[in-house]
């Protein structure tokens, strides 16, 4: 005779995404369920293993009966949800958001060390952004090459804050943060001093690996040479959670 079943703490719900009936634990978010089921949802700030940021707005989905769009990364599933992830309207919004990103800084893919390995570049292609309709902002930023191993290029930064979060939540150093408001925002190390002079940076390089673009890269890399490896993150996040 099997031992009596223990009452589970978390219930399972069923929901419908893009016409597919799916089941999910009620503590999962829409984006987690989509990733599990190979339903592609574009995202830039979301990264498994880091806290939810909800800022890139690319993972917005439509929920039946709800006027406002929902961010798939920050919305938990509920019983009976009817979700559309790729409507014509969502595609149009996503294209515009990606265009806004390209126009905001100086993303010249052809001479970027992350060319061919960049999440923004990949998103532009999958969202069908073959040109940018809004004018380029033409702001100029300085490259911070003061760190002996890594380099920061604000021109490629999309302010997803993955570096800020991984440094704070996984490495525990909180070297990175954001300063300024609006389009004047930029990521900084410590109190906006050169990265190489940071007292808190442990040179672990996690920020470089989680950076979706060519903003944070290894020194000495040339065009297209910077390939990032993010496999460590869910493993570390799980172990940290288990502690």
């Amino acid at each position, binding site marked *: 005779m099997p031992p009596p079943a223990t009452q589970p703490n978390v219930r399972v719900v069923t929901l419908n995404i893009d016409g597919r009936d799916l089941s999910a634990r009620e503590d999962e978010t829409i984006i987690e369920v989509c990733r599990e089921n190979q339903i592609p949802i574009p995202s830039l700030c979301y990264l498994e293993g880091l806290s939810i940021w909800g800022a890139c707005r690319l993972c917005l989905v439509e929920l039946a009966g709800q006027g406002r769009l929902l961010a798939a990364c920050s919305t938990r599933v509920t019983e009976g949800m009817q979700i559309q992830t790729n409507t014509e309207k969502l595609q149009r919004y996503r294209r515009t958001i990606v265009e806004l990103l*390209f126009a905001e800084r*100086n*993303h*010249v*893919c*052809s*001479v*970027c060390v992350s*060319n*061919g390995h960049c999440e923004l*570049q*990949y998103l*532009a*292609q*999958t969202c*069908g*952004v*073959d*040109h*940018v*309709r809004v*004018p*380029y902002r*033409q*702001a*100029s930023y300085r490259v911070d090459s003061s760190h002996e191993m890594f380099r920061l290029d604000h021109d490629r930064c999309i302010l997803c804050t993955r570096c800020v979060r991984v440094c704070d939540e996984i490495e525990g150093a909180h070297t990175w943060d954001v300063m300024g408001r609006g389009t004047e925002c930029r990521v900084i190390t410590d109190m906006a001093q050169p990265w190489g002079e940071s007292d808190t940076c442990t040179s672990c390089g996690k920020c470089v690996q989680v950076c979706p673009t060519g903003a944070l890269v290894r020194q000495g890399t040339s065009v297209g040479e910077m390939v990032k490896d993010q496999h460590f993150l869910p493993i570390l996040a799980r172990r940290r959670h288990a502690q």
Partner: protein
Amino acid sequence: MSTPPKITVATTWLDGCSGCHMSFLDMDERLIELVQQVDIVYSPLVDTKTLPDHVDVGILEGSISSEDDLEKAYAFRKHCKILVSLGDCAVNGNVPAMRNHFKLADVVDHAYRDTVTVQPQTPTRGVPALLSLVKPIHGVVGVDVFVPGCPPSADAIWYVLSELIAGRMPDPSSVTRFGA
């Protein structure tokens, strides 16, 4: 049996490295097939020196950096039914637009004076005046097809032309991307 009329194609390069035209030539033996379906009526690759009044497809490489680029872009828009931006410089400014972060005078000084040791001087005669801001083609005239890439591969150019020859609007996102 009559052969279908060939479509006419005009190309030129503006502020770019002409790499997209080299990629065009990289179509290799497919060029022979292409020549049976299109007439290249104006291009750096052929001898004609004037743009005909009516062209089916105009292809522009490079960005708008000078008065001359501007004139050519206007002329292409005026005379071509379909205008194609070929390559990243045409599509988004790319490398030529990297000077936009500096003042034009500083850029010219840097190129012709600061870094020149023998007789530094800024050329003024016989060269078109530079614009203060480098723009992609669609920053000055309407563009119908965007083919990003630095340069777009021969396959991508072949795909775009084949679709246009067949009378369809191509979707280059399926074959190329920024920086490809």
